[in-house]
Structures are given as C-alpha cells and as structure tokens.
C-alpha cells in the first residue's frame, strides 16, 4: 500500500498567515505555490529556482528598488500590490528606459488574512500582465505579530535604455520647459480618504498607473531633447521640483493656473488643510524638455491615455538660490518650498 501524504488545502477564505508559512517547510512552499505562483504565473517562476536567468540585452541597463508600506493596504483605485508594480516600473521608465523584469519581496505579519494576501498577489499579477513586465523572482518572509503592519512589499526592476538617451536629474537648463503629465494629488487624497481616523466621502481614486507606455511615446517624440523625468510621488510636485532645482543648480518658475488639478481633489485638500502641490501622485510624471521640442512632446503625451491632461506648467530659470517660485492664480508670487515634516491638517 502506498501512503500518499495528505495535504490540507490552504483555507484562503478564512485562514491567515502563521509563522510556519515563513519557516522554509511545506507550508511555505504551499503558500508560494498557491498564492504567488498562481497569481504571477510565468515561465521563469514555473522553473521554481531561487533566482531566474534571462538573456542580457545589449546597451545600457537601469535597475531600481522600492519598498511599499502604504496604509491602508487597499485604497480606492489600487492596493499595495498594484502600487508596488507601477511604482517600480515608473522609476525605471523615468530614465526613458523600457522595463523588462521585476522581482518582489514580501514581509508578512503573522495573522495576516490569506484572502487579503491573495487579493494583493492577484492585483500584482494583473498589473504586471497589463504592463507586460513579468515578476520573475521573489521572496517571502513572515514576522511575528506586531513586528510589521500587515504586509510590506519590495519590488526591484531592471530595464533597458534606448541608444543615445541619457536622462538625468542634473540636466535641466535655464530656458527648458516643464511639462506635467496630468492632475496632481489624486493618489494622496484617495489614500487619506480611507485612513482610519479620517474617513470622508469622496469619489476620488488613486492615479496609480504604469507610465512606461507614455514615456515610450515621449522618447519617440522628443528623443535627446528630454533632459529629466521624475514621477512626483512622496512630497508631491513640490518635492520633485525642489530636488531637480538643487540637482541641476537652477530655479523653476511655475504658473499655478497651468497646474492641472481635479476640483474634488482641490476641495478635499482645502477641507484637510493640505496643499495639493505636496500630495503624492503614483501615475504622473514631470518632464524637463528642451524648449524647441516641448510642443512635440506635449502633443505626444496628450495623444496617450495617461497624458491627455498634460500641460506645460512653467520654465527652468537661472537662480543661484535654486528656488521654485510660483505665480499664484491670484496674481501674487510665492515660494514652493520643500515639505517639512508630514503634511497635516491645520488646527484652526
């Protein structure tokens, strides 16, 4: 008589992650197979190695890594899984590069619901498939209750830079135009609207999206006229412009009226005492473009679904203080400074 080992199915509906799921035993293998491989399925993962081999494509490559700790894990318009795919793809794309592969690492807190883990893995699989960028290797760790907050995800990406392209943050020059790909603040407000002690009614959804398709269209239209691109995530548009001003040793002059913002987002920011310039985005980019190519790049962006609200928002200027200045819609001037501390609602 042959004894066949009984294998209890993962109780995805009611079960939760326990320490055995990170111990290297059968339970871990089952978790990886039934949740992650199921959701992220591709030829590399199917081989079951601790690493994945791939052919190196000629030319310059880029690599990036990013940790995701968003709270709440599920928010309108996305979740930590789709965000981890989009965010890392975008960091690759901001070099003008074409993302090719991703890896994913999970740190899971003991007690985390398997149903939520599956939902996150499925969302990552869908985001990766839609983007055409497979997750080809990964890692899972489980930590004791209280040592993490649900789940943290880290993704790493590699990509290939088209020949001749060398975008970098020190390349903005006075006279260059600044183009923003769409409305600001959507992601931050969507996430905040679901924070435990801040729930408010809104239809605002996160703009979380993979931008490499938009970038490819911009590279085709602008080529080497593209100086710098950056996605204004944490700290929002204000932080991105200040970083670029310092790295390129220039100033920016921005027109508030030109910066696209949804009226619901503007209203929610008013209510919370936030300045939308400092609120995070996850599907937008800022491009600094040589003046003669700005119109062509803008037209290419507007022809792409993720760039139809794109606008020239200002110019690079010579400025030894590296200030980001804004002409307010009201007609006055102000500095758009770095964010200090967390942006929190005012108290009176």
């Amino acid at each position, binding site marked *: 008589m042959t004894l066949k080992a009984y294998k209890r199915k993962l109780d995805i509906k009611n079960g939760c992650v326990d320490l055995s799921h990170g111990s290297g035993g059968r339970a871990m293998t089952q978790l990886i197979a039934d949740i992650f491989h199921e959701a992220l399925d591709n030829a590399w993962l199917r081989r079951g190695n601790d690493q994945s081999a791939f052919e190196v494509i000629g030319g310059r490559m880029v690599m990036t890594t990013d940790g995701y700790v968003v709270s709440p894990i599920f928010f309108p318009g996305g979740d930590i899984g789709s965000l981890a795919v989009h965010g890392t793809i975008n960091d690759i794309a901001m070099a003008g590069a074409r993302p090719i592969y991703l890896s994913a690492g999970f740190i899971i807190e003991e007690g985390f619901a398997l149903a939520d883990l599956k939902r996150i893995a499925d969302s990552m699989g869908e985001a990766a498939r839609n983007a055409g960028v497979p997750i080809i290797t990964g890692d899972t760790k489980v930590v004791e209750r209280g040592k993490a907050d649900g789940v943290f995800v880290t993704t790493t990406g590699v990509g290939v830079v088209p020949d001749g392209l060398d975008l970098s943050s020190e390349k903005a020059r006075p006279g260059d135009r600044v183009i923003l790909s769409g409305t600001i603040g959507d992601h931050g407000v969507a996430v905040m609207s679901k924070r435990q002690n801040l729930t408010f009614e809104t239809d605002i959804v996160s703009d979380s999206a993979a931008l490499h398709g938009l970038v490819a269209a911009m590279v085709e239209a602008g080529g080497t006229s593209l100086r710098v691109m950056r996605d204004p995530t944490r700290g929002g548009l204000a932080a991105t412009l200040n970083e670029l001003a310092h790295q390129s040793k220039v100033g920016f002059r921005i027109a508030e009226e030109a910066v696209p913002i949804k009226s619901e987002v503007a209203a929610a920011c008013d209510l919370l005492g936030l300045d939308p310039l400092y609120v995070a985005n996850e599907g937008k980019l800022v491009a600094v473009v040589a003046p003669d190519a700005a119109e062509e790049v803008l037209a290419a962006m507007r022809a792409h679904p993720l760039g139809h609200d794109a606008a020239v928002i200002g110019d690079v200027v010579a400025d030894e203080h590296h200030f980001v200045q804004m002409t307010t819609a009201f007609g006055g001037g102000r500095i758009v400074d770095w964010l200090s501390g967390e942006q929190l609602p005012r108290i*009176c």
Partner: protein
Amino acid sequence: MKHADEYRDGRLARALAARIAGEADPAGSYHFMEFCGGHTHAISRYGIQDLLPANVRMIHGPGCPVCVLPVGRIDAAIRLAERPDVTLCTYGDLMRVPGSHGGSLLKAKAAGADIRMVYSTIDALRIAETEPERQVVFFAIGFETTTPPTALAIKIAAAKKLTNFTIFCNHVLTPSAIQNILESPDVRELGRVRIDGFIGPAHVSTVIGSEPYAFFAEEFEKPVVIAGFEPLDVMQAILMLVRQVNDGRCEVENQYTRAVKPGGNKRAKAEVAEIFELRKSFEWRGLGHVPYSGLRLKEAYAEFDAERRFAVAHIEAHDNPACECGAILRGVKAPADCKLFGTVCTPETPMGSCMVSSEGACAAHWTYGRFRDQARVAS
C-alpha cells in the same frame, strides 16, 4: 463638493488691488494687523502683499494657537506623555513645537512615549473607549473655534462615564490677546508698532460674533474688519480698512457676513460656558502672562482635567534667548529681523514656535515669502 474658486479669482483680485491703490493716500501709510494665523497663511500663500501698494503694510499678529503656547506647557505635555499609563492625543502641528533642551513631542514619541496624532476630539474619545486600560489625555489647544468641540467631548465623556479621559487644557481667548497688544508699551507709549486697524478673525468670529470687537473700536479707536480666510476676503477687508482710516472712522465692520453673525453661535457659546471658566492669568509665548486670557475646566468637571488628575506642576521655561518669536508675535519685529531665521531656525529644525505651524509668521514667510528678502530672480 463645491469649491471656493469664486473667492480666489485673480481678475477680481486685480480689480480690488487697483481700488486699494487708488484709495490709499500716497502721502500716508497704512499698517494693519491680521490677528489670525489663518489670514497670515492666506496672505503668504496667495502672495497678497505683492498686490498691495508699498504704503499698505500687513503686520502678522499672534493668532496662531501653536505659536503662542509657551515652552513650559510643551514641557508639561511631554512629562505627561512620558508617564507609562498615559496616552497623549494631540493635533499634528504640536508634535514639532520645541520645548526646553531641544525636546519635542515628536522626540518623546520616538523615545517611547505613547503619543498619537488625532484629527478631532472624537478620535481621542474613541481611543479612551476602546483602550480602557490607558489614561487618555487630549492636548486641547486653540482659540474660540476649537473650544466648543472640546466642551462637547467633555460632555460626551461625562455622559458615557469615561474614567480614563482627561484634557490638558490650553484654550485661550482672542479679545484678551488683542487688548494686551493694544495696551502694550510697544503700541501705546514707545510707538514701536504702529497699528491703524485690525483684520478680525474669521472662524473665531463665527463663534463669538462681531460684538466683542466693539470695545476695540470704541476704547482704542482702532477700526476692525472681520474677514474670511479666502484671499478675496482679505483683499476686501483691507480696502474696507483703508476707507475707515481715510474717513476717520473706527468701527467694527463685518466682511464675512456669509458666516459671522453679530451674536455669534449661541449654542457653541453656551456649551463652552457650561464646561469652562476663566483662568486668572495664562502665559502666552510672546505676550507673557495675560490676565483672564485662558480657560480651564469648571470644578464640576474637574475629574476630566489632566492638570488636576496628574498634578501637573507649573514649569518655568524660557525660549532660546536669541529667538525673536516674542517680538514677532507682538508685531514689533518681522521674521527676517531675527538672527536665527533661516540660519539655525528653519521648518526642519524650528527653534521657535513661529517656525512650526504653517500659520506661524516665520514658517509662512520662510515657505512662501523669503525670496522677497533676497535678490529677485531675473525673469
């Protein structure tokens, strides 16, 4: 959600600016104090000073609750939070306000104190209900706008018989502070601060109404125009003040009629009167001890008073001697006059409270206006 664009219209702003420039007497000058931090923020955020003629100057007042909280009260809050049985609930702005010896609530939290940022008194009440083993202390601060919600929280706590909820009360009163400024030697005798009129508070006035300001117009002969926090509100109030000065009038006018009634919010005032009583004196950063300017819980609600429950001692503490927050809060100095401004004192490493809140005069000037102090970038 309807947005407030109609109160931020640049075209209307330019029309108002032209009228102010046209009516302001070029031979004279006009010095108006905006009492509230909300107005300071709007002036900086929208660049209103740029739209005013050079002889109309705005002086930032002490109406930022974070800025006027003295160092000793921050130290006391830190000591409370360091008690192992206490969970201190606070609005986020207070986290970075510097106490003595470089301390702050943010640093105390990092060192292990149970300090939680909340957005309302109701959040603090909820924590008290869900964590009955913790002594939840709400760090209550603010002018007349934030006092009614605190009063309501006390009533709810009393109704629910919560024995683990108290408040550390730092509520202060606007009229006492304005009176203190007008009676100060800087204004009265030394003439170091010239104030030709006040922009009266927006949200505070929705609660207390426009009547309490009549005293300033009559006794001190200063015009007061109560204004909303939107930039066009502020511009219109400035025009109304210029007209009062030109006509030699000293009246209380209400620009913010869409929200402020002469008698204010009677229900809110009644709630506050039921729960709170005047302190004989309360210390303000910048103004010192101001008589009858602060509130505390009445004896009947003493069980909800953290100062009484935990025997919080008065802590005598002083600002950094080089910090000019005091003079800035009285309108005697401007942020750029302070040696610390922009050198060791920035929003990342605030030395004084005016650099902390976005409504603080220093933080507002640093964030939105400091390029005016430097050579303008060639356009």
